[in-house]
């Protein structure tokens, strides 16, 4: 408790450097504000809440202009009064379209059109007084915290059910390949909620826009998909682009196995009975699987050679090229074209062959090196023996 008091006093003193002294009564809020970059930028209590600076008597300090900002719309407008102001934001290099985007979002529509008091506003995601930059790992909108922040509402079954939305999306995301990469492995290139849904203009991607959203990262797959036979089908709304095969929140690690079988998302689930289509899918699968297997086998051969003392940077680079071509081949599966894939697959196999040939040269060099060094050691040992025998005669 004494520590808390000291902390509060320190915050009070910090905030009291401003003309207003709201911290005398609102210590907790003042403490939160002291951690925010707002205070450093000169944005104190009265900038958002109104009131009169420098007065310690409550009624006079609050004055007739006090804004409690308890209703969602007024809170959004208060934030927007600065954050939509180009002149003010230019100093900080911040975007000024958040308010406009928010108005177009489902959250904004719920607040401004339906007066939904439970819809997310600025403070729901960013916090009220202790707002931190999104890049700060403690911020609730930092990419690693987004699923928890969005999940506060979107995991609430009652809240979501009342609005006709599913409440399992955050959980599904956590177990997905994207969620595991970001939350467990810390790979920041993996998407968080806002990367697909947007942040201030949060809307679910429409069926025809899914490819564009996923294509932000999976550009090659999106390109081949649009150029392939599925592109026109998706444009006509007969399939949901990426989601039809990979799902949305529960995206699992894509593998060539999707090309076989008739489980949901697999080729056979839509193309059952179309033997020619399934034959192409099986052909693509076989080529990909063979390339995968050859790369794995070659990597094992390199690992064993390296453990024997060979320097294999060149061969690792060749195999890296083969891996790059395999990734390209994986992207090309979205074109559903065996001819296109065959070209990349052949180049991948050529790189594997080059890796093995180069390794063979290194092995021969290593063998020669061992023969020569062993020969030198034998000659040295013979000379030593001769010298010692000669010395014995002395």
């Amino acid at each position, binding site marked *: 408790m004494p520590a808390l008091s000291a902390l509060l006093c320190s915050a009070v003193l910090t905030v009291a450097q401003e003309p207003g002294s709201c911290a005398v009564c609102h210590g907790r809020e003042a403490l939160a504000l002291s951690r925010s970059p707002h205070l450093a930028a000169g944005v104190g209590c009265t900038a958002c809440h109104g009131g009169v600076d420098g007065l310690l008597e409550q009624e006079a300090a609050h004055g007739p202009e006090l804004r409690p900002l308890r209703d969602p719309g007024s809170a959004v407008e208060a934030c927007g009064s600065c954050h939509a102001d180009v002149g003010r934001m230019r100093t900080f290099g911040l975007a000024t379209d958040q308010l406009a985007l928010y108005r177009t979002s489902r959250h904004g529509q719920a607040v401004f059109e339906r007066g939904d008091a439970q819809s997310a506003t600025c403070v729901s995601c960013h916090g009220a007084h202790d707002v931190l930059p999104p890049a700060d790992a403690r911020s609730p909108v930092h990419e690693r915290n987004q699923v928890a922040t969005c999940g506060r509402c979107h995991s609430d079954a009652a809240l979501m059910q009342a609005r006709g939305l599913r409440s399992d999306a955050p959980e599904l995301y956590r177990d997905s390949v994207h969620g595991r990469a970001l939350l467990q492995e810390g790979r920041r290139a993996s998407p968080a909620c806002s990367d697909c849904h947007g942040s201030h203009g949060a809307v679910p991607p429409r069926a025809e826009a899914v490819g564009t959203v996923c294509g932000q990262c999976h550009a090659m797959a999106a390109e081949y998909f649009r150029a392939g036979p599925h592109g026109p089908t998706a444009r006509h709304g007969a399939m949901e682009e990426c989601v039809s095969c990979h799902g949305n929140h529960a995206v699992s690690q894509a593998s060539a196995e999707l090309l076989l079988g008739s489980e949901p998302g697999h080729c056979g689930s839509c193309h059952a009975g179309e033997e020619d289509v399934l034959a192409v899918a099986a052909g693509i699968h076989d080529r990909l699987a063979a390339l995968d297997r050859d790369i794995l086998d070659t990597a094992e051969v390199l690992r064993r050679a390296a453990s024997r003392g060979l320097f294999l*940077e060149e061969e690792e680079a060749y195999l890296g090229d083969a891996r790059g071509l395999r990734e390209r081949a994986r992207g090309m599966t979205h074109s559903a074209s065996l001819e296109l894939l065959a070209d990349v697959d052949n180049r991948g196999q050529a790189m594997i062959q080059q890796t093995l040939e180069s390794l063979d040269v290194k092995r021969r060099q290593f063998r020669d*090196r061992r023969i020569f*060094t062993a020969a030198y*050691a034998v000659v040295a040992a013979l000379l*030593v023996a001769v010298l010692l025998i000669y010395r014995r005669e*002395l």
Partner: protein
Amino acid sequence: MILVLRSGVGEAEVEDVVLALTAAGARSRVLRGAGRPLVHVLERPRGGVRRFARHRAVEGVEPLSRSRQRRIGRPFYPHHFLGWCAAMLLLSGALVLLSGFFPRGLGESPDPRLPPAEVQAPWYLRPLSGLLHLFPPGWEWAAWLAAALLALTACLVPALDRGRGRLPGAPALAAGLALAAAALALSVLGG
């Protein structure tokens, strides 16, 4: 080797043995005062020293025992020089053999995508690399000079032995151990 002469041999016969050795290309010296005279053969004569056992003045041929060596000494050349050469050959042979079979460095294998701040030398060059690192940039010549001096000192220690002990093997061993310790320390310090 020591030629033990028969007791009571005269000076002329001793001289004859020495002359025979000289004719066979071997230096020798006569040792007196230990009862019967002895001839210390300092170099290997042509045909070997054992053929002199048949000389009428010679009773037998004995190797130079350590106790006798301690008493009468042994010239540096060729005895200890040959030992030193054999040790150097053995060391270089072992190093070359090990470097041929275990060429890798001691650290992680290099990653071209994440180049290390400093490239490490293979293990057999780590002492030299460590010595180079002890000197500031531009003073590499001093590092090479120091390495040469260090090696020269280690090689010359047995030859420079002026102690009363007549077994240069002990200082040579000490010099070898000191050199190995210095190599290890340089590998660690400069690594």
